[in-house]
């Protein structure tokens, strides 16, 4: 589903990603671990076509990265930012994105997602007035609006309250086997539990790759060995 070959990204004179080769199969859940500054967010942004790679090739769903618009139709992205318009209501945000993605039966889809994410009572509220947890849930709803087969999640649990975390986990569990997921996280336990495969990124390179089942008790040592940092 996702293939990257010799992918690199440079900012100024600093290579943030270097010579990455990775293949994620349809329906696979890939967890990307790594310390801050290892290139996790940059990798997801390149996959999401938000950043242009400085070298290498990428294909998603059989489409070359030159077909950016077609690739984006296959992707749902949840990043650090909510990607929402603060002065619009939750409903207006979802309607806007539904129009941009040509979502068929948009109103019914929005209603269903709002129920699923426990957002229905807040659809009429301006995003500016929502809590961080609610914004995150809305952000996940936005990413799922067009029912994408590939989900990219950049540290989705960051700053979430208990309720939002529970909804997120429930949502992630539903993705397993159904959608192709690439998730970056600092939470080793969650990353190991969810991922069919785990890669560790350090200084822009993949330094470790392992498949389920991985021993959660010894993994912090493995992480330290391949990153030089404590999780």
């Amino acid at each position, binding site marked *: 589903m996702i293939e990257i070959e010799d992918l690199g990204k440079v900012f100024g004179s600093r290579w943030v990603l270097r010579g990455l080769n990775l293949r994620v199969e349809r329906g696979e859940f890939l967890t990307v671990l790594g310390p801050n500054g290892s290139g996790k967010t940059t990798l997801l942004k390149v996959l*999401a*076509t*938000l*950043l*242009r790679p400085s070298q290498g090739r990428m294909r998603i769903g059989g489409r070359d990265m030159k077909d*950016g*618009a*077609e690739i*984006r*139709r296959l*992707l749902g*992205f949840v*990043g*650090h*930012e*909510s*990607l*929402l*318009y*603060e*002065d*619009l209501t939750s409903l*207006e945000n979802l309607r*806007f*994105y539904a*129009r*941009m*993605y*040509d979502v068929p039966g948009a109103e019914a889809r929005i209603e269903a997602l709002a129920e699923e994410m426990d957002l229905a009572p807040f659809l009429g509220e*301006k*995003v500016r007035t929502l809590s961080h947890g609610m*914004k995150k849930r809305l952000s996940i709803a*936005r990413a799922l609006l067009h029912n994408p087969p590939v989900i990219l999640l950049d540290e989705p649990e960051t700053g979430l309250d208990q309720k939002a975390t529970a909804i997120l986990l429930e949502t992630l569990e539903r993705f397993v086997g159904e959608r192709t997921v690439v998730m970056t996280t600092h939470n080793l336990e969650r990353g190991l539990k969810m991922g069919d495969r785990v890669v560790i990124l350090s200084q822009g390179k993949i330094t470790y790759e392992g498949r389920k089942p991985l021993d959660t008790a010894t993994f912090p040592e493995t992480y330290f060995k391949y990153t030089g940092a404590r999780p």
Partner: protein
Amino acid sequence: MRKALVIIWKDVLSEARARDLLTSFLLYALLAMLIFYFALNPEIVDDAAAGVLWVAFTFAGMLGLSRSFFLERERGGIDGLMLCPVEREVVFLGKVGSGFLFMFVAELILMPVFSIFMNLPLFIPRLVLVAFLATIGFVSLGTLFAAMAANTRAQELMLPLLFLPTAVPLIIAAVESSALVLAGAPWGEITSWLQMILAFDAIFFVLAIFAFPYVLET
């Protein structure tokens, strides 16, 4: 094209709620006109009128464009747009469309005020035409540079530094044609400047639409 209209509608709705862009544009331009009204010698006001108008429009316009991209960057809204399954050029068209709409509406509101300050007829159709044409090039170039400046730390400083030197020919053509309109010059004299504005519109629009995807993705 339909998606560009969706982006314009989203911007109009956001502006209707926040009233950020129009308010800042109008206040800044009004203040500039007021300062010139009191500062200029009444004997030279007629000669300086076109300059006053375009100083007010230029600086207020830059403020509006900078604010527009700041709002788009807030909470990653621009990334949200970039994730949509449309070409980057559509995003550019949407942002230019809404930028043009806000700036031109503000200009239409300000022109009668300017006329009162300068003791001119309230409605001058040829001046509206000049403003309409010049605003197309202004917003095309301004949108590109505002997107570029929004990626930097000192965005308020970067936009004028990038924009003003490049937009000088367009601003000169706008000032010259406005001065001729206000002096009641014949249509034939004005058209040569209008053709120049149209040429700059075309050049800036084409350059900006090609450069915009690169600016966004790097």
